[in-house]
């Protein structure tokens, strides 16, 4: 597709234009021996030892290009991070696109380049893809759907069933950068120092395991933020989470956007952070392992797990001023308030 060209319905028809699109845009960026065969399915080598892990994800972010990333970059990060949160080492991804007739070639190239960059950073390969083009008005520029395959090394067991009273809750970096950036974009609030935190987390997670940290559970606080993840873990484990508002790392620019738009950093999505539930005696060591790395330099201990009694609230925030506030799941989307 030439520069400034727009995508036509014919690009999705399977004919000559589709082949041009694949050969001209996707293959050069995502080049690897599996994808370049362009067979109906990628036949992969034997998996390394351990249990296979499989995840799927869909990406509809609006706007598709934002400070700190794009839909393509996000689609790879989101997928590999899901695998990393299960304790798996990500290996191979699929990447299917639903494109709207009329989008500019530059948008597609940007997202494809983003995908390639993230795949290189995460050391994974995109081994299968698909492209559909829907008529103008039947989509929103670009949607991506992925699947990711990885392997959980032998002897590793990560999950909410392992969370215990006393566990430390650690976050790898400041809350809400991605969500705040997206909301700011949508409302025309731009700032040089506000960008998405979108990043692959596999390498950082592996550092914890390599240091012998007893990691009980991992989650990346994407849609719904830290608040939602904590409620889910509390629900599944039957335990109670107590978070310290004073300990939550929030960048001033994220705080500013949140205040302006009536949002809560605790409920804003992060796309390059994880929450880890680790054995209590290793909390400090976990922070020492994470902090030397750029993606983990602001890692913080933000709470603890406790027993939960009958009728007690599952997630509680000790507020900055010494109060206690239950952190309920959001009901519906975060609606901006009138005044």
């Amino acid at each position, binding site marked *: 597709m030439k520069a400034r060209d727009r995508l036509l319905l014919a690009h999705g028809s399977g004919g000559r234009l589709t082949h041009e699109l694949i050969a001209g845009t996707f293959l050069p960026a995502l080049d690897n021996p599996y994808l370049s065969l362009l067979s109906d399915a990628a036949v992969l080598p034997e998996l390394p030892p351990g249990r296979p892990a499989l995840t799927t994800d869909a990406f509809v972010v609006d706007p598709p290009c934002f400070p700190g990333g794009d839909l393509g970059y996000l689609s790879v990060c989101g997928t590999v991070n899901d695998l990393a949160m299960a304790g798996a080492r990500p290996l191979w991804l699929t990447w299917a696109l639903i494109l709207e007739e009329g989008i500019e070639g530059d948008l597609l190239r940007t997202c494809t380049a983003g995908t390639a960059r993230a795949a290189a950073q995460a050391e994974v390969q995109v081994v299968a893809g698909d492209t559909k083009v829907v008529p103008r008005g039947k989509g929103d520029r670009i949607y991506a759907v992925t699947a990711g395959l990885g392997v959980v090394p032998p002897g590793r067991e990560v999950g909410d069933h392992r969370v215990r009273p006393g566990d430390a809750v650690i976050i790898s970096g400041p809350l809400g950068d991605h969500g705040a950036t997206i909301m700011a974009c949508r409302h025309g609030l731009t700032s040089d120092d506000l960008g998405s935190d979108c990043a692959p987390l596999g390498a950082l997670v592996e550092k914890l395991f390599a240091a012998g940290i007893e990691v009980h559970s991992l989650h990346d606080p994407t849609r719904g933020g830290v608040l939602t993840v904590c409620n889910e873990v509390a629900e599944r484990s039957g335990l109670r989470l107590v978070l310290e508002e004073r300990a939550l790392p929030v960048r001033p620019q994220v705080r500013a956007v949140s205040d302006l738009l009536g949002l809560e950093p605790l409920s804003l999505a992060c796309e390059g952070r994880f929450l880890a539930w680790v054995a209590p005696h290793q909390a400090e060591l976990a922070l020492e392992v994470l902090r030397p790395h750029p993606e983990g330099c602001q890692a913080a201990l933000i709470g603890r797990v406790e027993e939960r009694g009958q*009728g007690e609230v599952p997630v509680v925030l000790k507020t900055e001023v010494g109060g206690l*506030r*239950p952190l309920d799941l959001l009901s519906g989307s975060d609606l901006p308030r009138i005044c």
Partner: protein
Amino acid sequence: MKDLYRDPRAVAGLLAEISAAAAGLGRGATSARLVRGATFMEGCGTHTHAVAAAGLRRMLPSNVRLISGPGCPVCVTPVDYLDRALALASRPDILVLTFGDLMRVPSSTLSLEQARAAGANIEVVYSPRDALARARLLPSVQVIFLAVGFETTVPTIAAALAEAEQIGLDNFLILPGNKVMPPPMAALLDDPELGVDGFLLPGHVSVITGWHAFNFLAEEYAASGAVVGFTPSDVLRGVVGLLGNLNSGRPGVENFYGRAVTSDGNRTARKVVERFFEPVDAVWRGFGLIPGSGLGLRSQWSDRDAATIGVDLPPPAEPPACRCGEILRGKIDPPECPLFAAACRPENPVGACMVSSEGTCAAWYRHERWTGDRR
């Protein structure tokens, strides 16, 4: 810079003052009720939110109670306003734009959110200026902004109307639904059964009106009011002030938000409002009609008044078991409503008090259900 107004030590100091003042309640007071404790009403939804966010309610001594009043603009919007908005939104030549928290308010039929999912022309905007921008982009569509909110919000709506006039944008209209705060407070105080000992007064409304607009509380009703801001320290400072009024037996209205609120307020804002709006009688959900409590468009702006557009309205249907009215008037607490936390929840609100996160029931549901909890 450290936030002085959220400093835990300052807050602890204020709480100590409150405890001391609360211990003195009832001694020398004429009201037997005060022996049991003091009840203060916050007349502003943002105060409800701020108190809940900091967990302040449970930090107060057990004989000092904060209850929420009718200061939640979403909660007091009557059913027929929403019915009219829905009827307008179902017309192909109309686009209805609204503040977000109106989306889940139940009407006689669907909420705006449900209607949008079913194809009605409704979108959420952050401000009236966003609505103006949409009107410019869609010249063949009548763009109607749902004008809801109190004195803080009205100037921005008036300013949008002024801009529409200036640029000759004929397709920008509003559906008037704005209300003003003093009349419902007077209505509350006219009720001899009202158990409220003082008011935390809306800080941002006061920025516009000036705090002298609330002097009537003391002059006509011998009640006390404290104009406060929205940080924990601000709110607690107001509680200290109100307890002081009670203990001294001297009602008064005081401004504790001097860094933003003056006695006379923002005259420029009020002038813009007066150009377009005039006081009208208005229905408040849970209260019924309160004379002079709403703002309607002056007759020369009838072209911009979406209420003049003829639509078929369903017979207004308030849910029968809903007790929002008593909640808004501080008569009962949410758990006393049979629907609370059962049929009426934030995800499925029956009454308006549950819809907005500032509504008494929503705030209670989220923050007060501590059955068996430890402090």
